[in-house]
């Protein structure tokens, strides 16, 4: 009993959701274990309950093939009800790419995704400016820091109504904006036509974060880019601070 509790105390435990069609789940598993030094656990979409976790990561991919609208079917998976309860209890949730799209569809974040302005899939490095470093996901960044991160999506053109946009801005919920190498937010530096160049947002409480770029693809020197580590390690700091542990939820 005691050695097990010690081990559990030592290692942060991050759940990685696996939907049919998730394809960045193994990449996330790799960075959680190798870069964050945390314990990664795959969570099957049919699970109605989450094990005890310090954070939930929703990886990229094409959940259910994304034949209808990205994330539109995944939100009905049993696991999403559990994730919603986890988020409502204050637990940390990070959605990357398709994970962001699913969070939007599930209503855990406001807004929706349209097809990219070019109507094509785009895979390349982009630059994003950190607009808010006072979040559990950006604590290691400097104010206004420009990160180079890769994107890979066909539907990353963020949209929401003017009222929601104003409240996002008022609440400092816009965390990342697409920008040029020098940090200027310009139309030319916006790869997909996103409203207000939005690349990542949090919910009002700040514990749920969705972003289109892939920090897990840019966290290793061997792959040529380590900027993504800042986001992953910020999340780890927040877990370790203990300030974001979800309030206990009664198992039903």
């Amino acid at each position, binding site marked *: 009993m005691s050695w097990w509790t010690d081990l559990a105390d030592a290692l942060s435990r991050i759940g990685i959701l696996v939907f*049919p*069609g998730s394809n960045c789940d193994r990449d996330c598993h790799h960075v959680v274990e190798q870069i964050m030094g945390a314990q990664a656990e795959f969570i099957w979409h049919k699970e109605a309950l989450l094990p005890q976790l310090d954070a939930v990561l929703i990886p990229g991919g094409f959940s259910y093939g994304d034949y209808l609208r990205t994330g539109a079917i995944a939100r009905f998976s049993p696991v999403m009800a559990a994730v919603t309860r986890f988020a409502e209890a204050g637990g940390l949730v990070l959605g990357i790419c398709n994970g962001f799209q699913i969070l939007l569809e599930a209503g855990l974040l406001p807004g929706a995704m349209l097809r990219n302005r070019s109507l*094509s899939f785009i895979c390349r490095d982009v630059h994003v400016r950190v607009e808010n470093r006072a979040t559990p996901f950006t604590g290691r960044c400097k104010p206004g820091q420009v990160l180079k991160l890769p994107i*890979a999506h066909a539907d990353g053109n963020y949209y929401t109504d003017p009222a929601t946009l104003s409240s996002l801005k008022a609440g400092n919920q816009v965390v990342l904006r697409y920008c040029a190498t020098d940090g200027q937010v310009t139309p030319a530096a916006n790869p997909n036509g996103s409203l207000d160049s939005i690349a990542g947002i949090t919910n009002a409480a700040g514990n749920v974060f969705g972003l289109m770029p892939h920090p897990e*693809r840019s966290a290793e020197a061997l*792959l*040529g880019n380590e900027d993504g580590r800042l986001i992953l390690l910020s999340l780890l700091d927040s877990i370790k601070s203990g300030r974001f542990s979800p309030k206990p939820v009664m198992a039903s």
Partner: protein
Amino acid sequence: MITKELVAQHGLTDEEYQKIVAVLGREPNLTELGMFSVMWSEHCSYKSSRAFLKKLPTEGPHVVQGPGENAGVVDIGDGLVAVFKMESHNHPSFIEPYQGAATGVGGILRDVFTMGARPIALLNSLRFGPLNNPKNRYLFSGVVSGIAGYGNCMGVPTVGGEVYFNEIYNHNPLVNAFCLGIARKDRIFLGRAAGVGNPVLYIGSKTGRDGIHGATMASDSFDEGSESKRPTVQVGDPFTEKLLLEACLELMEKDVLVGIQDMGAAGLTSSSCEMASRAGTGIELELADVPRREPGMTPYELLLSESQERMLLVAKPGREGEVLDICKKWDVDAAVVGRVTGDGFLRVKDKGVVVAEVPARALADDAPKYERPAAAPPYQDHLQSLSLELIPEPADCNAVLETLLASPTIAHKGWVFEQYDHMVQTNTMLRPGSDAAVLRIKGTDKALAVTADCNSLYCVLNPYIGAGIAVAEAARNLVCSGARPLALTDCLNFGNPERPDIMWQFILAVEGIADACKALKIPVVSGNVSFYNETRGLSIYPTPVIGMVGLIEKADRAVSQGFKAEGDAVVLLGETGEDLGGTEYLRAVHHREQGTPPMLNLDREVALQALVLKAIEQGLVRSAHDCAEGGLAVALAECCLSAPSGPLAAPSCPLGAEVTLDARGLRRDSLLFGESQSRIVISVNSNDLITIKALAIESNVQLSVLGFVGGRKLTISIRDDQGLANVWIERPCRDLDIIWRGALRSALESPRESEGRHA
């Protein structure tokens, strides 16, 4: 009753039909005729090529599985193997570009994961007619989005490949897809139906009426009516394939399978008879148990359907329940549809009534083999005749360089590969755009390099040399990234083999590949032949595409093509000759596709590659780039302009260079734009020059220090035999970069502009 017309409609000759009657000892029924027609089609039986493919060397110290299985397998150490193959999907992609290309990707992925490997990379080798023709723009963009649509959803990165444009592909584009996977050496699965009594299971998509007779279509030439064949093209569903992939890999972990094979061309028929034939067994199938999409399908349709995303498995006795459970977890359809028998027959029943009964071996392996007549075509002499006196030396070499950088064949292919997810799986160290793509292997210090290459203009001018160059260039591309070539897969695209000139091309090309493989000690472990690439009697250029895999022992030693730092010495390894025949320069500037292709001296090639590998292993090489289309000037420009974002990227790009070439009596255009083989441009820290020179002398490779990396311009001077140097190329890298990176996009988006670009 089988009539002469029915036999002809099935693409079988009278003699072939008589052979079927002899094999069966009776007339076949319609279902059996259909089964023979697909299995004995050129596409499935290799009846015109088998005799010649035997010349290819297939053995080597690290070969685990050579040709004859779903894919080739080579040992890469650490208990791991690389599994790879390349295949064509030319005909379907011309009829329906998106689905044709997508299902080509789906098929090659299945060939690799059916062996127990998780696919880690895709490449594509594409050829189209020029983009000023709207039909070609439609085909090209359709194919690219089809590849993207399938590969991206599967989560397998498309990390590179090649794209060529030439009028000859106007009515017959080529779409060849390559897939590489990694498996544990002790967990390789083969397509064998061993163990009499073992259950046979069908898993994956339900069977529909799509793609019936796809293999027969792919074994015929095209005419005006070809687009009416659209219903023979299958429709892909990458989501189902992703589930099928995960279900199969989980089944393979559980040790419940005896054998497994994908249902590709000729679907249920080919998978069952090939699995039985390899194991020397038979299979009995019950069609009533086959999951199907629509009612009323006949045995003929069920057996010949090419519905995608399906697999045939043979399970260990009593383990079928576990197979069904795992499939259920992944929401993949699965059913027991038969069992392995000992009598060697593929016996097909429909609700207990036998509807076909054919010896499995006869279907899979006893197709007639042809050694068709071969003769050099009468036009060959004209093609090879080129009098250089008729070609004026260019006065404005800057304009020629710009024309070449804007030629869609040479131009930067960002428009293509930005539509492909080339980073998923987080292994891509060298992204598309360098000589080879490099992928690290997690859990080891190693990396694999992959490339696909062929210059078909060389091949039409001289099939033997052209095919040899394809092998040499693929190996050179791997070596430039620091990888030791392990093995290759080939995808041999040719015209109608019933024409003696096409057979002549084919035989010479195979010999060219074989000789280059022997010299470079690179075995062939898998491959594919695509004949009948002709429309209205016009054949494509012979296009034997080579896909090659190499191993880098220390991943962090990988090298890319872009220059790295100011002050580095620019060094040419290898010799420049008067090699203008078949060059992109002659084609794009002088509108001639003529001459003899560059000579290939295999001894020199071997020495060059050994030298570069040794220099890279010693950490002496900062960048390395093969001289290919466009010659030395284009290679130097690409070294300046290449900034693959990665660990190996130049810090600030584009970087300029100032170099001087010695004329040695050669023409200006030969020096700058000639395509002499066995040449690699490297850049080295100038302190290492002495060491690299000593290595070159020891290896008997000619080395010339051309100049230095520096500034923001590319300057190339030529020093004549009196020692006087003149500047012939001087352009800001920024300007060249805009031309090179923008050419493909502008050819697609404002096609008129690109028409008038030739100098």
